[in-house]
Each structure stands twice: as structure tokens, then as C-alpha cells.
């Protein structure tokens, strides 16, 4: 079984630029999560999708962050414009039908550096 694919693996941008991250979950997984992991901290949930609908985006900074999951498969997370404090690893995870009962599978993340 292929894992959760994320790209790019690394990205360096200047502040005020835009950036997008892509996630391809495991085939058939209905639930998809985006987490932000700042250096020295644990991951923080940004948004959760169930198929192509948003379940929880309470911690997503909506003035600059946006995410979509078209057709309930791949997902894109965008930051526009980026700030220095957005430097972090962005992790994507997926689950068959909710992590409590089926577990979560994480990707290897995208490391973003904003200079």
C-alpha cells in the first residue's frame, strides 16, 4: 500500500510570497488532515476534511491560509502572503474513515522556510 505522498519536500520563499503544498492521501481514505509543526513543538491541526467537506478548520489562520480538497482525493494547502512565523513542517495525514477507529497515516511533510 502506497503511503501519503506530499510535495515538495522542501521549499524556501521570501516573506510576502505565496506557496502551495500538495498532498495525495492513501487511496480510499475519506478523511484528510493538515498539521503545522513549528520547530521544537508538536504538530498543530490546521484543517480536517471528510471527503471534500471541511470538518474542522478552527485553527486555520484564514486571513492567509486556505485549503481545498477537490473531488475528495488530493488536497492543496496555500499560504498567501507568507510570514516569517510560517516557517514550519507541514504534515498531511489521512484515515480510512476517521482516525479513532482506523488510525492515521502521516506523510513525510514539507519543510517551509520563509526568509
Amino acid at each position, binding site marked *: 500500500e502506497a503511503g501519503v505522498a506530499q510535495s515538495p519536500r522542501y521549499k524556501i520563499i521570501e516573506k510576502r510570497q505565496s506557496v502551495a503544498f500538495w498532498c495525495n492521501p492513501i487511496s480510499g481514505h475519506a478523511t484528510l488532515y493538515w498539521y503545522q509543526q513549528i520547530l521544537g513543538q508538536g504538530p498543530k*491541526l490546521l484543517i480536517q476534511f471528510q471527503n471534500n467537506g471541511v*470538518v474542522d478548520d478552527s485553527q486555520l489562520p484564514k486571513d492567509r491560509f486556505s485549503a481545498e480538497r477537490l473531488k475528495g482525493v488530493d488536497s492543496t494547502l496555500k499560504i498567501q502572503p507568507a510570514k516569517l512565523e510560517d516557517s514550519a513542517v507541514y504534515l498531511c495525514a489521512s484515515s480510512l474513515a*476517521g482516525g479513532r477507529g482506523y488510525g492515521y497515516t502521516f506523510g513525510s511533510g514539507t519543510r517551509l522556510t520563509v526568509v
Partner: protein
Amino acid sequence: AQTVTQSQPEMSVQEAETVTLSCTYDTSESDYYLFWYKQPPSRQMILVIRQEAYKQQNATENRFSVNFQKAAKSFSLKISDSQLGDAAMYFCAWNSGGGADGLTFGKGTHLIIQP
């Protein structure tokens, strides 16, 4: 808001010895799940062990076991017969028994294995 606290930024143990990583959490819910995840330098989160709060029996997975004290809101991880491959960041995480099931993580403990 739910919080997860890991008070040990770093722990060191001799190979083949036993080590215990601490975790406390704060929630007003009675139904929830607790997890320990391992994050090696590859950045991918790997599930170590999972505990359902309604189960009194402590979870065990081979060399890994937990001490779940619900009243004290404590969830420690014991690693027996430590191996070099156990070296990584370890994160304690919580999620609710109902509704959105994104994880709330602690800040992590860096585990060093001394050969």
C-alpha cells in the same frame, strides 16, 4: 481547550535498559483516545501505541507499554529493552471520543539511546 503536556524535553537511556516518558493531559471529556507517536528524522509520524479512555487495561505493543491513570490524567510510555532504532522524538497525543478527530499533540520528548 484540551492540552497535552510533556515535561521532559530530552531523555537518555542505555541500550537494553528501560525508559519511561511522561505525559499529562487536560480535558473535561470522559470519552477520548490517547496515543504515542514516534517521529524519526524522516519526519513521518509512526504510531507506537493507542489507548481508549474507557478501557481500564493498559495497552501493550511488544516492548512498548503505557501506564494510563485516568483520574490523574496521566499517560506515560515505557520502552523496555531499548534499541538504537528507538532513538527519535516521541509525541503524546489526544483526541476526542466524538466529533472532529484531529489530534492534539504535546511538545515532544527527544529520546537518545546510548550504545
